[in-house]
C-alpha cells in the first residue's frame, strides 16, 4: 500500500492541506483579564456581546468597570412584549395593536401573511431594543444552533424563539430537553412522524451530530468516534411517540403544545453502542427522551462541543491548539462544574485574558444582522415610535438581511448559517460579489438620504451625532473619534488624511472649525446646517464603506 505514499512524495503538491500562514500566537487562556480597562476594552466587550452598542453605552461601560458591565450584560430581563398585529383589519380575535400569539386561524380568511410579517418585524425590533444585554446575541446563537426553519405557522415559531430567549444563558441540558419536544422542532425534523412502526431518524441524527456531542473522526464502519450509526437507529426509537398540537388550527381551544402518544412509541428495549457504554434503555414512555438526553450529557465531549460553538460565536472562527487546550478545555470544565449552566461558562470566557487579547480584537467579520444594526443603532438613529411605522421600518431592515443571506427564522440548513461551521471560509462566507453591493446599499442610504416610511425619514442625523463628540471643532479629532466609534482597530495616518480630505477637500483645518462654529452660532440657519451636514454625510458614507467597518 505504499503506492499512495510514494506517489505523494513524487508528485509533491496538490492534495496536501494548505499551510496556515504563520501568525503571532495567542497564548492567553481562560484566566481572568488583568490588564487596563478603558474605552477600547469596553467597546470590544459590548460589540461582541451585543448587535451594536451606542457610543454612550460604551463610554458608560468604560466608567463602570469589567465586572459591573458583565453583571449588566447577564442581568435578568422581562420577556419582551409579544409581536403585534400592526395593520390587518379583518382578524375578529386580534384588533390592530393586539397580539396574535394565542389566537386561532380562520377557515375563511388567511391570517398567515400578516402574522408572518409581524413576527419578522418583531424579531428585528428585538435587536434594536436589545439593551446592554447578551440575551439577544444568545437567542440568535441558539437559533443558529437548533436552526429550525420553514415552519409555516407564526405561532409555532414565536413559541420556539421565546423558548430559546427564556433559556438564553440557562441550563444547556434543560434546553435540549425542551427543544426535543418543542412543537416547532417536532415538525422541523419529523419527530412528529417518528413512530415505533417505522422510525424516522432525522431528529436522532442531528441531536447527536449538531445539537449535543458532535461528530468525531470516522473510526470504523458507521462509527463517528462519539457515536455510531447504531446509536442513531436506537435513539430514533427512543424518541418515538411525540406529536405537536395546534398547527395552523382554526379551533380556539388547544394551545400550541406537544403530546406523547404511547401507541406510537416503541416499547422495546434499545441497545446503545460501546460509544455510550453499551447502555440498554428500557421502556420509560414519555420520560424516555429526557433519560436519553441525560445519558448523552454524561459525555464530557458535549461540553467541549458547545464551548467550541460559543467560541466561534463570540471570539473567532479559528480554534488553534492553545485555544483548544487553555480556553475550550477549561471553559468546558466550568460548564460541567456548573451542571451545564451557560451563564458562568460564558461569563468566564468574556472576562478572560484570551477574550481581551489584542489579536482577538477586530478579526470577526460582522454577520448581516450585526452589520445592519451597527449601521443604524451606533448613531442612535431615531425610529418611528408607533405602529405601524415602527414595524414597517423593521420590515425594511429585514428585507436587507434576506439579501445579505441571514434571514431570521430561516437558517439555510439544520447546521445553521455556514459562516459558523464551514471550513475554510467561516465568517468570510458572508462576503462576496452579490452581498457586498447590498451592504453598501444600506450604509450609503443610512449615511445619505435614508428611507422614508409613511412620511418618517429613517437616516443618520450627522449633526446630532457629531455633537456627542469630545471635540467636534477640530477635523482631525472628528476623524479620529469617528474611527474609534466605527472601527475595532486604529487606522493609519494615510487613511486619516484621505478621510479628512473628504470632510474639508483641499482646505486648511480651520475652515472646518469656522464652518462648524458658524452653524452652532445660528443652528436654525438651514443653509449653514446643510453645509456642515452634507460634509459629514460624505465622511460617514466613506467610513461605513471601508472594510474596517465590516469587522468587529
Amino acid at each position, binding site marked *: *500500500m505504499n503506492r*499512495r505514499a510514494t*506517489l505523494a512524495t513524487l*508528485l*509533491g*503538491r*496538490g*492534495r496536501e*492541506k494548505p499551510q496556515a500562514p504563520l*501568525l*503571532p500566537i495567542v497564548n492567553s487562556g481562560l484566566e481572568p483579564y488583568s490588564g487596563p480597562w478603558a474605552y477600547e476594552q469596553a467597546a470590544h466587550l459590548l460589540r461582541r456581546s451585543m448587535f451594536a452598542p451606542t457610543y454612550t453605552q460604551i463610554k458608560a461601560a468604560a466608567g463602570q468597570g469589567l465586572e459591573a458591565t458583565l453583571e449588566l450584560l447577564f442581568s435578568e430581563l422581562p420577556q419582551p412584549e409579544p409581536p403585534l398585529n400592526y395593520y390587518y383589519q379583518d382578524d375578529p380575535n386580534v384588533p390592530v395593536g393586539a397580539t396574535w400569539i394565542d389566537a386561532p386561524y380562520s377557515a375563511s380568511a388567511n391570517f398567515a401573511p400578516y402574522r408572518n410579517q409581524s413576527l419578522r418585524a418583531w424579531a428585528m425590533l428585538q435587536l434594536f431594543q436589545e439593551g446592554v444585554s447578551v440575551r439577544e446575541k444568545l437567542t440568535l446563537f441558539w437559533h443558529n444552533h437548533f436552526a429550525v426553519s420553514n415552519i409555516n405557522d407564526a405561532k409555532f415559531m414565536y413559541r420556539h424563539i421565546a423558548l430559546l430567549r427564556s433559556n438564553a444563558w440557562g441550563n444547556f441540558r434543560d434546553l435540549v430537553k425542551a427543544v426535543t419536544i418543542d412543537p416547532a422542532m417536532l415538525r422541523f425534523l*419529523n419527530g412528529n*412522524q417518528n413512530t415505533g412502526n*417505522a*422510525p*424516522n*431518524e432525522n431528529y436522532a441524527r442531528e441531536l447527536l*451530530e449538531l445539537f449535543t456531542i458532535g461528530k468525531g473522526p*470516522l473510526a*470504523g*464502519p*458507521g462509527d*463517528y468516534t462519539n457515536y455510531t*450509526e447504531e446509536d442513531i*437507529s436506537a435513539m430514533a426509537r427512543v424518541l418515538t411517540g411525540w406529536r405537536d398540537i395546534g398547527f395552523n388550527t382554526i379551533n380556539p381551544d388547544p394551545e400550541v403544545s406537544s403530546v406523547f402518544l404511547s401507541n406510537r412509541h416503541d416499547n422495546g428495549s434499545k441497545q446503545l453502542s460501546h460509544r455510550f457504554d453499551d447502555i440498554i434503555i428500557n421502556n420509560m414512555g414519555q420520560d424516555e427522551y429526557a433519560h436519553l438526553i441525560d445519558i448523552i450529557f454524561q459525555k464530557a465531549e458535549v461540553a467541549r462541543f458547545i464551548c467550541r460553538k460559543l467560541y466561534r460565536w463570540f471570539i*473567532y472562527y*479559528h480554534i488553534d491548539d492553545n485555544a483548544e487546550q487553555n480556553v475550550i478545555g477549561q471553559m468546558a470544565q466550568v460548564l460541567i462544574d456548573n451542571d451545564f449552566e451557560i451563564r458562568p461558562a460564558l461569563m468566564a470566557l468574556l472576562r478572560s485574558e484570551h477574550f481581551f487579547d489584542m*489579536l*482577538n480584537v*477586530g*478579526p*470577526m*467579520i460582522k454577520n448581516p444582522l450585526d452589520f445592519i444594526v451597527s449601521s443604524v443603532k451606533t448613531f442612535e438613529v431615531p425610529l418611528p415610535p408607533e405602529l405601524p411605522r415602527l414595524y414597517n421600518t423593521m420590515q425594511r431592515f429585514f428585507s436587507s438581511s434576506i439579501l445579505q443571506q441571514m434571514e431570521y427564522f430561516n437558517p439555510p*440548513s439544520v*447546521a445553521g448559517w*455556514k459562516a459558523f*461551521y*464551514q*471550513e*475554510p*471560509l467561516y*465568517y*468570510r*462566507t458572508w*462576503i*462576496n*460579489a*452579490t*452581498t457586498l*453591493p447590498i451592504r*453598501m*446599499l444600506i450604509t450609503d442610504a443610512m449615511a445619505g438620504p435614508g428611507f422614508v416610511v409613511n412620511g418618517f425619514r429613517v437616516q443618520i442625523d450627522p449633526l446630532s451625532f457629531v455633537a456627542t463628540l469630545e471635540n467636534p471643532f477640530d477635523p482631525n479629532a472628528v476623524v479620529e473619534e469617528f474611527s474609534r466609534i466605527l472601527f475595532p482597530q486604529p487606522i*493609519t495616518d494615510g*487613511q486619516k488624511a*484621505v478621510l479628512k480630505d473628504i470632510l474639508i477637500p483641499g482646505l486648511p483645518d480651520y475652515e472646518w472649525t469656522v464652518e462648524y462654529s458658524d452653524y452652532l452660532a445660528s443652528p436654525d440657519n438651514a443653509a449653514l446646517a446643510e453645509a456642515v451636514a452634507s460634509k459629514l454625510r460624505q465622511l460617514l458614507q466613506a467610513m461605513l*464603506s*471601508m*472594510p*474596517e467597518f465590516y*469587522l468587529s
Partner: protein
Amino acid sequence: MKRRKFLKATGAVVSLPILLNGFRLSAMPRRSIFNAISDESDRVLVLIQMNGGNDGLNAILPLDQYDRLANVRSNILIPENEILGITDTVGLHPALAGVRSLFDDARLNILQSVGYPNQNRSHFRSTDIWTSGSPAEESWTTGWMGRFFQGGHPSFPENYPNEEYPHPFAITMGSVVSETCQGTAANFSLTLNDPFSLTPLTEGAAGELSDTPYGQELSFLRTTIAQTNAYADSIQEAAEGGNNTVDYPNGNRLAEQLKNVALLISGGLQTKVYVVSIGGFDTHANQVVEGNTASGEHAELLSQISTAMAAFQADLQQLGLEERVVSLTFSEFGRQIRSNDSLGTDHGSAAPMMVFGKCVNPGILGDNPEIPEQVDNQEGVPMQFDFRDVYGSILMDWFEVPEEEVQNLLYPEFQYLPILEPCTPTKAREANAFEQEIEVNAFPNPFRDWANIRFRTNGEWVKLSIYNGLGSEILVLTNRKLPAGEHEIRFEAHGLPAGNYYLRLQLDGRQKTKSLVKL
C-alpha cells in the same frame, strides 16, 4: 465549421475502446480524448448540486428489482406502469420526461450507484467530501476544482484579473460561493445573481496590513471588493452581448440559473466552471403524496431538473454551443432502501449521477443496484463507482489534465471512466454495451462463516473489497496486480454480524458489485 471537419478526419484515432481492453493504464499514459480536437480553453463545465441527498432509487429505477423494492418501500414506490422505461431494465421517474428525451437524443450518460468507500451520512460532512474530493477519513479544505485552478494559478487572487485572464475562473449562481472552487488562498468562484445589475463598489483608501488575524480578514475584504469591481465589467459585457434562444420554464430556480449560464457563455465569457444548485432533496417526510406516489415533493424537484435541463440543452444547441458544455449532477448521498412511515426516506449511501451534453458517452454506465431479498435496517445502495473517478475522468477529458496530475489532485488509485466521448453522438446504446462484462461469483451464498469469490481478469490491477449495508468498506481482500486468468479469494466473515454485504470488484476502469448474505 473547421472543428467539425477536423473531428471527422481524426475520428478513428480518438476512439477509445483501447482503454478498456485490459492494459494497465499507467503503462500507457492516457491523454484527453479531446486534445487533438479543440482548444480546451473554451470548454465549460456546469455542476448541478442537488442539496439534501437525492433518492436515486426514486429517480432512476431498477426495473428488474421492482418487486424487491415493493417489499420495503411500497408506500412511496411509483406504480410500475407509470415508470418511463429507457432500457429493458432501467426506468425513469415520470417527472423526468425531458431527461428521457435527452437520453434518446444521446445527450445523457447515467452513472449508476456513485459514492465513496465508508459512506458518511452527515449532510455536512458528506457535502464536504463531495466538494473537496477528499477520502471519507480526511478533511481537506480546498475544493476539487479549486485545486485544479490553483495548479495553473498558484498566486491567485494576487494580481487577478489580468490581461491574460480577464474573466472569473468560476461562477457560483447564487449568493454563497461554492466549496467546490475553494483554493488555498481564496475561492476561485464569483457569486452572481443577476448579470445585468452589478453596481461598482467603493474602494476606500487602503492602509497597511498587519500580520495578524485582523490584518488577514481585512486583506480578504479588500481583495474581494477589488475583484468584484474588476470582474463586473466583463460579466456585464457578456450579459449584454449574449442571448437565449428558447423559453425557460417559469418559477423554476434551476432554470433561471441555467438561463444565465447560457447567456454568459454565448456572450463570450471565458469562465470554465459554473455551479448551480437546487435544494430540498432531504425528503425524510412527504417525499410523495400518499396514494399518488408519482407526485409529491421529490417529483416536483425532479420535474424542475428535467424541464430546466431540456431547455438548457435546446438553448445550447441553437446557440451552437453544444460541443462546449458538459453538465453534471451530484448530491451528498442517496437514501436508504427502506422507506419510513412518514412517506419519506432517511440518509443512505450511493446514488446515480447524470452527465448531460453532446460530448457524453451516451447510455448507462454500471449495473442496476441489487436489492436484497431481506433489506437490513438503515441499508443503503452500495457504491459501484467512486465519485472521484467521475471527477477525474472529466478533468482528464474535458480539461486535459494528465492522468498523473489527476491522481495528485484526487487520489492515487484513480480509475478512468469513459463518461465523455468526442462530440458525434448517434443514438443511446444499450446499457453496458461498451463494457466487457466482469465475471464474478461467490459461493456459497448465502453463507455462514466464509464465502469463496471467484473472478476472471485480464492481467490488470485488481481491487476486491467487502462493503456492509451502511456503505462502509469493511475489508479489502486484494489490492494489487494479478496475472490474467481465473482467481479465487476467500472472504472470512467469522465474527461479522449476520446481514447483507456486498463485494466490489474493480478491474481498472470496470467495476461490479454483488450482494452477499451472511446467515
